[in-house]
């Protein structure tokens, strides 16, 4: 079964961004740029946080607008990303209503979740979790 990252309870999010750092560390670097997850305030910290993750759609709009098949649907939901095929057109970023196709300014390519769940291991408050996609 395909897995995806789910936001279990956004109200428990403290905005620590441990998940964003973990996602970048996964690629062997420190910092934030390689993160495929984004956490920002919901219009000022007093209102809490928004956690943006790829929800692994069954008919992903990002893949539909990709002209080069760099993004293709994954069996069971979500997408696979082949950076070598990507021409950096930005279509996917505009197509995802959640803003989950994040942009890597250095390489001019999107940052696409690989559904590994590494970030969830570092979330101290159980906000996010890797789950099997059901229905």
């Amino acid at each position, binding site marked *: 079964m395909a897995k995806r990252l789910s936001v279990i309870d956004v109200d428990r999010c403290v*905005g620590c*961004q*441990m998940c964003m*750092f973990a996602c970048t560390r996964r690629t062997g670097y*420190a*910092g934030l*740029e390689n993160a495929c997850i984004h956490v920002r305030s919901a*219009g*000022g910290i007093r209102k809490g946080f928004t956690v943006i993750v790829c929800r692994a759609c069954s008919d992903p709009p990002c893949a539909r607008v990709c002209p080069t098949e760099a993004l293709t649907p994954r069996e069971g939901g979500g997408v696979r990303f082949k950076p070598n095929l990507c021409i950096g057109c930005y279509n996917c970023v505009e197509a995802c209503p959640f803003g989950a196709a994040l942009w890597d300014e250095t390489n001019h390519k999107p940052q696409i979740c690989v559904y590994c769940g590494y970030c969830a291991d570092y979330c101290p408050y159980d906000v996010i979790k890797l789950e099997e996609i059901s229905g």
Partner: protein
Amino acid sequence: MLPHDPLKRILYIDLSRRSFEVRERPELFDESLGGSGVGIRLLEEECPVNADPLGPENPIIFTVGPLVGLYPLASKTVAMFKSPHTGNLGESHAGGRSAVSIRMAGYGAVVIRGASVMPVYLVIDEDGVRFRDASALWGTRSSYTTGSVLRVREGGSGTRSIMRIGRAGERLVSYACVITETYRHFGRLGLGAVFGSKQLKALVIEGKRTLPVADRRAFRQTYDAIYKAAVDSPLMQKYHELGTPINVLPLDAIGALPTRNLQSGRFEGAEAISGESLAANYLGRRVACAHCPVACIHLAALRIPYPNDPYFYKTLMLGYDHEPIFAAGSMLGLDSVPGMLQVMDEIEMQGLDVMSTGVTLAWATEALARGLINEADTDGVTLAFGDAAGYIEAVQRITTQPTDFYRALARGVEHAATIYGGRSFALAFGGNEMPGYHTGPACHVGWSVGARHSHLDNAGYSLDQNALKKGQTLTPEFIGETLLNEERWRQVLTSLVLCLFARGIYDRETVLGALAAAGFAWDAEDLERLGAETLRRKIAFKQREGFDFGALRIPQRIIETPSPGGPFDEAFVREAIECYSNLL
């Protein structure tokens, strides 16, 4: 330092010329790491002797360190400047997203020189600086407004820091603060007034990048060890659950909670304003600084009905900590939580340092009761312990300064007491108002000698408490020596801009391991050298600007009001100060 680490880049901004340049200075960071260590060296370079703290010659320096962006709890930005409040070293630390944003924008330090001829705000990213017109923001009644406007107007939500001042900074109140991410502050020593003097309303800094590490495996291993230590440590647990106000009840129980201008160390309202009571009745949300799993920031939700409009409410979300509770609670005799929170809210809206404001108003309350001042001085405002409404009015007037008396209050309690009398109960040390502990002699010695006037400089308060627990008697020699050693080590931690709550996690060995993975081959001796040298430089800067250990004023009130550490006299305190300065 690793060849591609952008830490070496220093962004120099000239507000007078509206220009900027980036200079690479790897040797500075290789020798002093960052934070306090690099900050004091830049201050020595940038700040001329006898500079006017509110003149264009006073620089603002922000520094971060090599561990920021790499490891959890390396989350502070160190600000250095000449303080308009004390006339010597200004050093103030804040978290929020400030440190991560500066590092992610690709800088190790930001130096701001000169002064603008009109209100501006700055937008900083890796390409440099954009100067933006802030004249429409100047004079807005509430500091919250500036945050709301810039949040919408500028990009980078989630990976930026928005530092801003309130009207108190614009009006040059010498203890005005700089607010970042709404709930964190460069609180003490008047950075807000230095911003104001430069007509610098705010600074938005944004960035997102990767940082190189020396060895990926070692980096991940070191990371995991630190992360595990942080989330498993009981200390961290306590800061997450109740936060710093966990100290209110224990301090009250031993008689160390400064109350009503330190006329007492016990407060009958302590229970009401305790961390336990606030968590049970008001806690609305906990939030974290960037890259910190602890989330010690506690926000109270306070619902206030409009008196004459049924079903109209406003809901405040207000950050609280031990120090604001002491300063706007026990010190002012406020035992009603809504009253205390509304005083804090007014202080936030003006953009004042809450500790200096509370201590100054506590003195003013006593001065009014003793007839040193009258209601003409206070502009008709009644200052009385326990009366929140009067304090809210007074806080507004510290900014607007309608009378000579408020003009004096706007420069702090030391200055006001020099004019109006009542110095024996003016609770300032070296010109800066006291923090929220009256544990015994060591805490007071600590903030007399401390290089940046914070209770976290050197932990005098924990010396007192440990002695009490163990039934020891403190000697001046022991206090002087212990404070000095501890403060040297804390210079290392603040050069790495580690949160001082994490000092138990980042022991010497952990620090060296973390540095190695970041490409700094340091050993224990290097750390000792940096700690001693940074403290020496900071004290030298203070002395250069007129600070004198021998001339420190010891407020009589700390001697008269019994402390749990037992009776002590002024001679004892002076002796401990002398031991400290001789050992330096």
